[in-house]
């Protein structure tokens, strides 16, 4: 295979550079400066045109991740606001969806580039908003207030999904919910019962046909 896979040495270098750079740029800088800071661009390679299709991949394996501890903590809280646990299914964070979000915004491909900028900016904006409301961080706000902020962002997103900060919530919600429903637990919760080898396919069961007033196909 000729795929330009990240080798171990390069990976270690990138991880080193990333962990060294992130605290300076994003963790320790004053909140006011953070929102305006341009997020670093991604320099890693993709998986190439001929990747191994059979093995399973984990976030961080193919390219270095971005989130620092604070961003990660915040994303976990947001994951569980967007997809909370309930009687029948687990929360997004328990399924590791925050790692997928990090993988996504760290992607070297052009399709994820604008998500990276908006999500990093949005995370910073949430902490600023928390400061405006007298807290140190978004994560230290009471749950009720966190939810109210998200509810307001959801309204803005519905009005115009391209205008910040509604755009941030729109994109994060898409990633968290999509990331959730693509896990086995999420597929179960939505009622997807397929992807199971069968020896026969008999069409919809009688109760479905009855509900729709349909006669089975011969």
């Amino acid at each position, binding site marked *: 295979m000729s795929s330009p896979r990240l080798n171990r040495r390069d990976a270690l270098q990138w991880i080193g550079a990333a962990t060294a750079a992130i605290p300076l740029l994003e963790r320790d800088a004053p909140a006011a400066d953070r929102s305006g800071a341009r997020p670093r661009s991604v320099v890693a390679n993709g998986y190439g*045109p001929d990747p191994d299709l059979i093995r399973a*991949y984990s976030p961080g394996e193919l390219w270095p991740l971005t989130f620092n501890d604070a961003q990660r903590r915040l994303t976990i809280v947001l994951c569980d606001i967007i997809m909370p646990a309930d009687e029948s299914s687990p929360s997004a964070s328990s399924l590791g969806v925050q790692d997928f979000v990090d993988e996504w915004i760290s992607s070297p491909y052009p399709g994820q580039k604008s998500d990276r900028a908006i999500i990093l900016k949005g995370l910073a904006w949430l902490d600023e908003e928390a400061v405006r409301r007298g807290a140190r961080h978004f994560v230290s706000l009471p749950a009720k207030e966190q939810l109210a902020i998200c509810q307001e962002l959801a309204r803005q997103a*519905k009005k115009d999904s391209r205008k910040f900060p509604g755009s941030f919530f729109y994109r994060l919600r898409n990633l968290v919910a999509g990331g959730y429903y693509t896990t086995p637990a999420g*597929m179960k919760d939505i009622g997807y*019962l*397929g992807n199971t080898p069968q020896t026969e*396919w008999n069409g919809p069961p009688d109760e479905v046909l009855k509900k729709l007033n*349909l006669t089975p196909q011969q």
Partner: protein
Amino acid sequence: MPLISPKQKKREYDVVIVGSGAGGGQMAYSLTMEGVKVLILEAGRMFDPVTESAMLHTWDQAPLRGVATPDKQYGFYDASVESGWEIPGEPYANASKEKLRQFQWWRQRMMGGRTNHWGRVSLRNGPYDFKTRSRLGVGLDWPICYDELAPWYDKAEMLVGIFGANEGIENSPDSSPGVLLPPPRFRAGELLAQQRARKLGIDVVPIHRAILTRAQDAARIPGKLHPRNRKAQRLLAQNMRLRLPCIYATDCHRGCSIKAAFDSTSVYLTPALKSGNLDILPNSMAREVTLNKAGKASGVTFIDKTTGAEHHAKGRVVVLAAGSQESVRLLLNSKSNPFPDGLANSSGKVGKHLTDSVASRVSAQIPALENLPLHNEDGVVGQQAYMPWWLAGQQDKLDFSGGYKALTVSGRKMPSLNTGRSFDRVSEADGIPFGKQLKEDARRYYGSFQGIGAQGAMAANDDCYCELDPQLKDKWGIPALRFHWKWSEDELRQVSHQQQAMAEILDAMGGRFFRKPDIDNPEKAISQGGRIIHEVGGAITGADRSKSVTNQWCQTWDVPNLIMADGAVFPGTADKNPTLTIMALAYRAADHLIEELNQGNI
């Protein structure tokens, strides 16, 4: 799969085939079963669908939840490697900068070609589709009629294994009795579409796809396909027994390790190799077809992509099946004194008459399909039902020449990354749904969306063609193609009709629309040229050698031992997908070639 290196190649072959997909694979199969010594040059690497298909993987096991990237342009798990509309180092150009005049060219650089990347929809062209010019005064006629190709449709269908039903529909032909495998039962949404469309006079019937719904009849079919050839019968029976019926899970685009879904490698190349008459050279990029002093094709010059070295494969016959426009490019790049404008181009028609499916889609949410009792709706995954063109007999009363088929897309499909945002328009939430509300919306609305996609006929015209770009070259220095593309008013009127009809069908299903169908502005709805990956033409077959490139046996008029065995020969696009016709034509061309070789005519 035993492959050879350039050093192991024999001094000469009976036939050198460029390409290993639907056309090249069928050619190689037919010829090697009859003892003809064949070499296939494949531009890509070996790909083994048995060990490399990610059949039951879930999206969370893939990078980026498996979404398309520049490296994997149809999604991570699509069984395409080193393939796509854009391949680094292998450029092409568009003559116009206008958005509607762009042509996108998908290339498949791997063993088995595009048969790896295929919905497996396998429909026969109908009698009218061969006589567009005579019937409607547009486009071009084929030199053959439907009845002349029908026996090879039967043979190709028996060999490949295709499910479907004989419905007796005008211009959507039935197969001979006993040829088709039983179709899968419809899903709830498909039954609903069938019930409601009937009121509009539109039939929803089982589609035909190259998927085994039961084991092939290995006791009967080999004898029918290879009478008096015991060795071929044995090899085919053996190979048929290696294929298992569909497991009713996973998308055929991912490849099929149980060989229920057809691909060239599993069905054509495997038995062909076992015949001992086939060599395959992978990673071999063809540059030029060579001529001998007598003006006959003598072989193919190619580049070994692993070393960059150039080699020549010698053959008494050359078959081009590189994927229609790639075969055209090879002809244009094979210049010589007798053919200064490209090989077999005395008519000036090489590169001309490029066509593609005319496609658009409409979707809606169907309240009747909400909150259905949970059940597995995978079926054969993907299309099971379609609406064959219902106005075939009334085409002269319409304001466009091309009919179309409509494909229903419904069901509780495996959720994708897009699922998370798919309930926004139906949700009653204050704002975009999230939290508990989103979970409830998802349980209620998931599976209640219905899409209909139309794919229609396109008559050949003078505005759609390709030529060599005066400057652009690929990374091996081979001149690249430049495309000219323009949808005509004829196609745009068809799309208006598509949009209106599909909206009516969804409306009859009680659909809620979130986007107005583009009846009055079809240019917004029409798919870009090449996007459906059904492009054909460029070395068309015809009855008149001054207006076409090949005769009815797909032999080029100028060089009879040069045969075109892919979509390049199509003098137009029907409302059917091209692949089955490519296979039937290649089968027919191979049978004719065997006769000619036996009689010493070539």
